[in-house]
C-alpha cells in the first residue's frame, strides 16, 4: 500500500461548519504536517487510577468506577474499569449489571467527579508548565503544541527533543500526582491522539510524518479516530477493512456514500489534520458560553436528548447570569457516532439569559435535525452554546418572553440566590434528576 503525496493535494473547499470532534477541521490548510509537533496526553484508566491511588486496597484488583444512583452500585453504567477489570472484558459504557456478571469479585465504586476534576486541574497545571499552548480535550486528555518550543531544533533532533519532553511530562505527573499517562507525539492532533493509544498503559509513542503510511495503512479501520462500530460496519460492507483500504478509496465514492463525513474520514486515513491546538484558560474576550455532554453509548431517543438539552441550557444560562452576559444566538452541536460533528444555530428576537427561550430554540433545532434523517448513528454528544453576547449591565431589556411568562425571571433569580449560597446541586428540576445529575456538569463552577 503506497500513500502518494499528490493525493494530499486533492482537497476541496474548506468545510468550517463540520468537524470530526474538532480534530479534522479543514481550516489552516496553509500549514504542512511536517512543520508541527503535537503531543497528546491520555491518562491511563483515569477514574480507576485515581481511586486506586487514594485507596490502597483497590490496587492490583479489578476495580469498576460506576455512574450510578444506587448506593450499592447495583445498576447504572461503567464509567471506567481498571486494567485488572479490563482483563474480564469490562469496559466503559457497559451496564454495571453486565460488569458484575463478568467479574463478581470486582470492586464497584461510585464515580466521584469532583475528585477527578481536582486531579484534572492539577494535571493541566503540569502541562501548562511544559508548553505555551495547551488544549483540554476531555477530563483525562490534553493536547500540547510543542512546535514553538522545538523551533530551534532541526531534523531528527527536533523529534528526539519532543520525546524527551514527553518523558519529562510523564515523570512530572507520576511524581506530583502518582498517576500514569500515555503520550503520543506526531505532526498533528489526529496522529498524536492515535499514537497515544498504541502503547497503553504508561506508553510513549512517536509517529514521524514519513512513518504515517506504513503505520496507518495496516490498522483496522475502527482504529481511526471517528470510526465507530456502525461506521465500521458500513465501511465493511464496501470492502473497507483497514485504514489503507479507506485511503485507497476515491474520496468521491466516500462523499457519495457518507456525505461530508466521507471526506473527513478520507482525510483522516491519510493522516491529515490541520486543526490547531486551541487555548484554554486564557484571558480573552468571551464570545460564547457553552456546555456539552457525552452520552457514552449514544442515543437516538429524542425525549432523552431534549431532557439533556434542558439541563445544558440551565447550566449555560446560569453561567451567563453569573458573569453578567446576555446572548442572542443559540447553537446546537451534535456528534453522531464518533465521527460526525455538526452544528446548527438560531438567532432569537431578543437578548436573554433565561433558560426557557434558549431551551425552546435548542429544542426546535434538535427536533428539526431528528426528523432530517441525517442521524445514521446514535447521538453521542450534545452541546449547547449561546453567542452574539453583550454585557447585561444596566438591567435586562424587558422582552416578549418576559411578557408571556413574567414569573420565570423571578423564579430564576430565586434559584440563583439559592445556588450562590448553597452550591449548584442544592436545587434542580425533577426532570433532571437521575442520570443527568450524575454527569458532574451540574457540579461544575
Amino acid at each position, binding site marked *: 500500500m503506497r500513500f502518494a503525496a499528490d493525493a494530499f493535494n486533492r482537497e476541496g473547499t474548506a468545510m468550517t461548519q463540520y468537524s470530526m470532534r474538532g480534530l479534522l477541521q479543514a481550516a489552516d490548510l496553509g500549514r504542512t504536517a511536517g512543520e508541527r509537533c503535537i503531543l497528546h496526553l491520555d491518562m491511563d484508566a483515569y477514574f480507576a487510577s*485515581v481511586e486506586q*491511588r*487514594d*485507596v*490502597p*486496597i*483497590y490496587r492490583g484488583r479489578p476495580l469498576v468506577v460506576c455512574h450510578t444512583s444506587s*448506593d450499592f*452500585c447495583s445498576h447504572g453504567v461503567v464509567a471506567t474499569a481498571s486494567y485488572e477489570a479490563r482483563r474480564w472484558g469490562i469496559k466503559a459504557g457497559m451496564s454495571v449489571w453486565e460488569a458484575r456478571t463478568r467479574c463478581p*469479585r470486582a*470492586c*464497584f*465504586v*461510585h464515580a466521584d467527579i*469532583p*475528585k477527578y476534576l*481536582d*486531579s484534572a486541574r492539577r494535571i493541566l497545571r503540569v502541562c501548562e508548565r511544559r508548553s505555551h499552548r495547551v488544549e483540554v480535550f476531555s477530563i483525562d486528555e490534553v493536547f500540547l503544541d510543542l512546535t514553538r518550543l522545538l523551533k530551534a531544533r532541526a531534523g531528527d533532533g527536533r523529534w528526539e527533543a519532543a520525546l524527551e519532553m514527553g518523558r519529562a511530562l510523564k515523570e512530572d505527573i507520576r511524581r506530583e500526582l502518582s498517576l500514569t499517562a500515555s503520550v503520543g507525539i506526531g505532526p498533528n492532533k489526529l496522529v498524536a491522539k492515535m499514537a497515544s493509544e498504541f502503547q497503553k498503559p504508561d506508553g510513549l509513542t512517536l509517529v514521524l510524518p514519513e512513518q504515517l503510511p506504513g503505520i496507518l495503512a495496516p490498522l483496522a479501520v475502527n482504529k481511526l479516530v471517528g470510526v465507530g462500530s456502525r461506521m465500521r460496519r458500513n465501511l465493511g460492507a464496501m470492502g473497507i477493512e483497514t485504514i489503507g483500504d479507506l485511503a485507497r478509496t476515491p474520496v468521491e465514492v466516500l462523499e457519495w456514500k457518507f456525505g461530508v463525513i466521507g471526506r473527513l474520514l478520507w482525510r483522516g486515513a491519510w493522516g491529515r489534520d490541520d486543526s490547531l491546538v486551541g487555548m484554554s484558560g486564557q484571558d480573552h474576550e468571551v464570545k460564547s458560553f457553552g456546555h456539552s455532554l457525552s452520552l457514552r453509548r449514544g442515543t437516538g431517543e429524542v425525549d432523552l436528548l431534549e431532557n439533556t438539552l434542558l439541563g445544558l441550557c440551565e447550566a449555560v444560562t446560569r453561567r451567563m447570569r453569573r458573569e453578567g452576559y446576555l446572548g442572542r444566538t443559540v447553537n446546537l452541536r451534535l456528534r453522531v457516532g464518533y465521527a460526525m460533528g455538526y452544528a446548527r444555530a438560531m438567532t432569537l428576537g431578543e437578548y436573554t439569559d433565561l433558560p426557557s427561550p434558549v431551551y425552546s430554540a435548542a429544542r426546535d433545532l434538535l427536533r428539526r435535525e431528528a426528523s432530517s434523517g441525517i442521524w445514521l448513528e446514535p447521538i453521542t454528544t450534545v452541546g449547547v452554546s449561546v453567542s452574539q453576547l453583550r454585557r447585561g449591565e444596566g438591567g435586562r431589556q424587558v422582552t416578549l418572553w418576559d411578557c408571556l411568562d413574567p414569573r420565570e425571571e423571578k423564579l430564576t433569580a430565586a434559584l440563583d440566590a439559592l*445556588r*450562590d*449560597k*448553597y*452550591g*449548584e*446541586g*442544592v436545587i434542580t428540576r425533577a426532570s433532571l434528576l437521575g442520570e443527568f445529575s450524575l454527569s458532574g456538569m451540574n*457540579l461544575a*463552577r
Partner: protein
Amino acid sequence: MVTLIEEPVDVSAVFRGGKLSPTAFMWEGRGYRVRRVLGTYRVVKGRYLELYYSVMSESPEVYELRFSTEGMSWSLVRVHTED
C-alpha cells in the same frame, strides 16, 4: 466494598504550611489515629468550601473525611473496606 456513612464525626486536625490535615477522628465511640493522608481534593459549594481527605488508620480500610466551612463541621463520608 464502599459503605456510605455520611455521619458527623469529631476530628483532631492540624494547620501546617497553610494546609489543614486531620490527625485523628472519633466514630461510633472508637478513636482512629490517622496514619496516612492518601489524597485530598476540594469542592466549592456556593459560599462554602468542602475539603475531602482519604485517610488510613492502623487497618487497611480507607476513610473519607469531609471538612465543610458551612458550620465548620467534619463528616465521615464513606469507608472503603476489603470484602
